[in-house]
């Protein structure tokens, strides 16, 4: 077992929520704030044990609003900050997420999705992850499907947040958060850790919100002498509050474009038996697990089915989806909700092939046999 306080290198049998904590610490997280909510509690409880050992700060806010805004304050003071919550608590955090987008503050938010009021399996927040905050924004949302991916994607979420100066979200689910599985944590030196750029010019020459239109500007720490105004109000490149429509347009173009124009860096998908597939299952999160099993079963029956697993769910992997749509006969979108992300897939793919939504909205994940039946039905 590793003696490294941050990186617990080794092979573990670990709870998904605990893997999030290990991923965060491996990525250099040194500030956590959260408010109790099931089924995310194991994240804050385990963090309250682990964080003090690394010298970082664990803070339990009086509510979600306090927690998410404490992240903004800590991050601007130089911390790598994270919170974890679950659907109903995620609602409250939208205010702070919107502010972090507008003022370009790196942070990581883990939302363990649950059905309304209970800890049943669901993917109901897939749209809230993207559209919950007021104001214009692009979001980066990663969708893990296993305990290993909870670790890996939490590390990646920090790296993307630091690089693009924006809140990055990990869309966890009850299914994987409360599951114990094998987790392999690599050596510290094998884990890529990205830290935000700091200005390399003195305060009097630094223009805090000036950057190329596909990038975020460097971010100094509070106390470094840069004396920056971080306002939710439209701000010019110097940070001054400005009501000029040109200023507003330029600002929101850059803070959305820095994500839109970096598709290749941000978007990740995984193929499974897609080379010769006639039917493609499009999945994200834990629904990719029964999908893969169903495809194995279908292949035994000679059915040419495959899975496209969306590891980055926002921004929409539209180029990958469209390429796939051009070479299959049918796409099935698997979801544990009333059929939400299906609309995005239809938007991109319906002009190339038939797109159907396969939903299960009763607090249970699809079984492989249910998915297989859907594949067979689609081929009739």
């Amino acid at each position, binding site marked *: 077992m590793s003696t490294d306080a941050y990186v617990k290198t080794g092979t573990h049998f670990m709870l998904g929520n605990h893997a999030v904590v290990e991923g965060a610490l491996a990525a250099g997280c*040194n*500030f956590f*704030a959260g408010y109790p909510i099931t089924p995310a509690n194991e994240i804050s409880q385990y963090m*309250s044990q682990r*964080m*003090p*050992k690394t*010298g*970082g*700060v*664990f*803070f339990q*806010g*009086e*509510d979600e*609003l*306090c*927690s*998410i*805004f*404490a*992240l*903004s*304050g*800590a*991050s*601007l*003071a*130089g*911390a790598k*900050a994270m919170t974890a919550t679950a659907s109903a608590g995620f609602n409250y955090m939208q*205010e*702070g997420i919107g*502010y972090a987008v507008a003022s370009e503050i790196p942070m990581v938010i883990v939302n363990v999705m649950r059905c309304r009021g209970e800890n049943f399996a669901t993917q109901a927040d897939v749209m809230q992850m993207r559209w919950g905050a007021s104001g214009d924004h692009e979001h980066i949302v990663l969708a893990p499907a296993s305990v290993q991916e909870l670790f890996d994607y939490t590390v990646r979420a920090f790296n993307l947040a630091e690089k693009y100066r924006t809140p990055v979200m990990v869309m966890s689910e009850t299914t994987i958060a409360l599951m114990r599985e094998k987790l392999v944590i690599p050596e510290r030196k094998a884990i890529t850790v990205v830290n935000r750029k700091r200005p390399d010019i003195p305060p009097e020459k630094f223009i805090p919100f000036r950057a190329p239109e596909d990038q975020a500007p460097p971010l100094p*720490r*509070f*106390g*470094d*002498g*840069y*004396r*920056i*105004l*971080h*306002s*939710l*109000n439209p701000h010019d490149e*110097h940070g*001054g*509050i400005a009501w000029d429509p040109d200023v507003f347009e330029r600002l929101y173009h850059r803070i959305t474009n820095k994500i839109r124009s970096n598709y290749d860096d941000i978007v990740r998908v995984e193929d499974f038996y897609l080379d010769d597939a006639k039917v493609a299952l499009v999945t994200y999160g834990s629904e990719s697990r029964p999908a893969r099993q169903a495809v194995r079963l279908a292949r035994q029956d000679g059915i040419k089915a495959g899975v496209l697993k969306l590891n980055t769910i926002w921004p929409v992997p539209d180029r990958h989806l469209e390429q796939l749509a051009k070479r299959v006969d049918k796409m099935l979108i698997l979801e544990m909700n009333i059929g939400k992300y299906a609309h995005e897939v239809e938007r991109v793919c319906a002009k190339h092939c038939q797109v159907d939504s396969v939903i299960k909205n009763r607090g249970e994940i699809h079984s492989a046999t249910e998915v297989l039946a859907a594949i067979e039905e689609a081929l009739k």
Partner: protein
Amino acid sequence: MSTHPLWKYLRPNALPHFFCPGCGAAQVLNFFLRAADEVQLDLDKLVGIGGVGCAARIPVYLHAECLHGVHGRTIPWATGIKLHNPELNVVIFAGDGDASAIGGGHLIHACRRNLDVVMVVVNNLTFGMTGGQMAPTTPRNVKSATTPYGNVEDPFDICKLAETAGATYVARWTTAKPKNAKNAIKEALDHKGFALVEILTQCPTNFGRRALSSGRAIDSLQWLKDHSVSQKKATGMRPEDLESKFVLGTFVKKTRPLFMGSSVYPKVP
């Protein structure tokens, strides 16, 4: 040409300020600059925080790090900053809405924890920026944009609230007592722990016109004077006579362990 000795504390190109003529918030900025100058506050290590509203604009004019623009979340920002870097000085400028309405839940917990920040509550007894609606501080019976027949609610005493919740420095003054107000901010800057200075300010545009039937700042100031009593005088007054009065003075000045978050346990084995 010589410049004003306090000019160096103002953010370049931020003026003119946006306050209405006669507004008390600009006076509070003045008090703060004088207090900061007297304690020789290092503005490189200062974070000024404002939420939303007229008072929230005060830190925007300071040449310091600044957070601004979300209503009621001043204390959560301050908490994150202080827990990560306790060396920074954090000063919050909150209106009565930021402090006692939408942000009231955060206030009691910052007092309870004894978070080491200064909170200047600029209490103009109304929601000024949005047009003079009733606030949790609006006196009973007066008219506002949302109480056209008179306010039926009893107002908060923010200082009593802070004292009860555990704040370690609490004082109240008015813009009619500029030296006292400045000295209270100075004491708060020197204080270790949660320091709340409430300054009652005139809002001629929206409180004056609606509640006092006068848009003249001088009338609002006179009203504040007429409704203020010193602590000493208040001790001899009957409770019913004190009901419509603002008691001025320093109510709490004590020390308690500071809130440092889990970072106080860095050497857990």
